[in-house]
């Protein structure tokens, strides 16, 4: 009797242990999927206007400006803060993003212009610009990841589409511009 009991004990313990491991792993897996809510950037061509409202596309570059290295490889980098003339004077003119303290190379890498740069010096693809924004605007990044800051479209119970920070905010002048409102409702006294 006693011997029999010993005989089944070991496999049972083993089974229980593997079950424990399995559940543990599953749990971790499930947790991971919950945490990673950062959107995937679609490999699509750049489109300006309506289309980018509905899907995450590549960051909205100005026409013919990317890759930056096309011009910058032949130029000697000049890290001195200055008013830009000729090229990028449009950005210089509109720049309104902590203008007093900041300058191009705080976000753009000095030696490799096709990349952005974190404060740590780590290079960042333009598709991940939200990480750069999040360095200062951490609270916004946190809210954006869960869909509270910014706009989500698609399904409330399924697949959603996101916009990157730069789809709504011009990174060089992030404050929203005023827009024309749609017409007001008809006044009661104006109804015939």
């Amino acid at each position: 009797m006693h011997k029999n009991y010993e005989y089944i004990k070991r496999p049972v313990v083993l089974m229980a242990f593997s079950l424990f491991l399995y559940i543990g792993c599953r749990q971790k897996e499930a947790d991971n999927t919950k945490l990673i809510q950062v959107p995937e950037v679609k490999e699509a061509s750049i489109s300006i206007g309506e289309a980018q409202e509905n899907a995450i596309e590549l960051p909205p570059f100005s026409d013919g400006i990317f890759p930056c290295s096309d011009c910058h490889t032949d130029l000697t980098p000049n890290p001195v803060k200055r008013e830009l003339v000729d090229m990028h004077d449009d950005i210089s003119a509109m720049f309104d993003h902590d203008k007093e303290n900041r300058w191009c190379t705080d976000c753009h890498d000095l030696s490799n212009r096709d990349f952005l740069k974190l404060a740590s010096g780590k290079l960042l693809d333009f598709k991940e610009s939200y990480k750069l924004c999040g360095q200062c605007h951490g609270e916004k990044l946190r809210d954006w990841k869960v869909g509270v800051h910014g706009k989500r479209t698609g399904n409330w119970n399924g697949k959603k589409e996101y916009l990157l920070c730069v789809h709504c905010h011009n990174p060089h002048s992030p404050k929203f511009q005023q827009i024309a409102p749609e017409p007001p409702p008809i006044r009661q006294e104006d109804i015939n």
Partner: protein
Amino acid sequence: MVTMKKENSRRSFFKNISLASLSALALNGCDSKALTEFLQRNFRTLSKKEKNDIVKNLEVKYKETYGKEFHVSAEPAMEGVLFGYALDLSRCIGCRKCVYACVSENNQSREPQIHWIQVLEMEKEKGIDLAHSNVHYNPEKVPEKGKSYFPVACQQCRNPQCTTVCPVKATWQEPDGIVVVDYNWCIGCRYCMAACPYGARHFNWGQPNVPAEEITTEMHYLGNRPRVKGVVEKCTFCIQRVRVGKYPSCVEICPVGARKFGNLLDSESEIRYILENKRVFVLKQELNTQPKFYYFFGI
């Protein structure tokens, strides 16, 4: 319960027979389809098959009227879903894009005009001052300095007063929390409009008019199907969209992402994140209507 005393007198027989023949005469003018529609029972008492027959008939009817293919759904509420809405007042710029996206999606009458969403303009320094708010603001550009904007539509109350006052039970709260109207059953008494403290219900004073080229063809029986003169209508959280998993129209159009929507019973939803992490309030809390529409200040 009060039981009615049965009266089988000669007098009541004549009274009833004359009433019956009068109604028969009145209905004689209608074709059989109109007659069936007239005699249709309250939507909530219908079987699944009856509902399907009704929406199929409506598709045919609308095609005849508008010359387009329509899909009318009678999709019931999903299990384990209670819809909630949140609006970030610090983001709203008062552009009214939501107002017109709603009109277009939900086939509100253009002339006479019906808007389910009212955007109220307020003086920032007065705080939330409903009494002195202005719905007719029309500057060149918004947002204006010193102004704040406060969009109001149906608050989808957990304790709705509009449904309790309806003498014919033509309006009720669905299991997913959406307060709906059966336009076929509504008698147009407008008691619900008087009971609603948010001005969220709208009456078709005239024959509603939606141009055929602008009509949204994806419809729900309890939502955006065409209404007739003399019935009340209201926001349904875009029932034809949300019951198939889509966001409401106003959420998708908002250019500043101020509008948030989701399932209150899902702890992972955006709406629950807002309830747990932001300070929210409901409109006219003191009335105990318990809205499922929350306002908050995101910044």
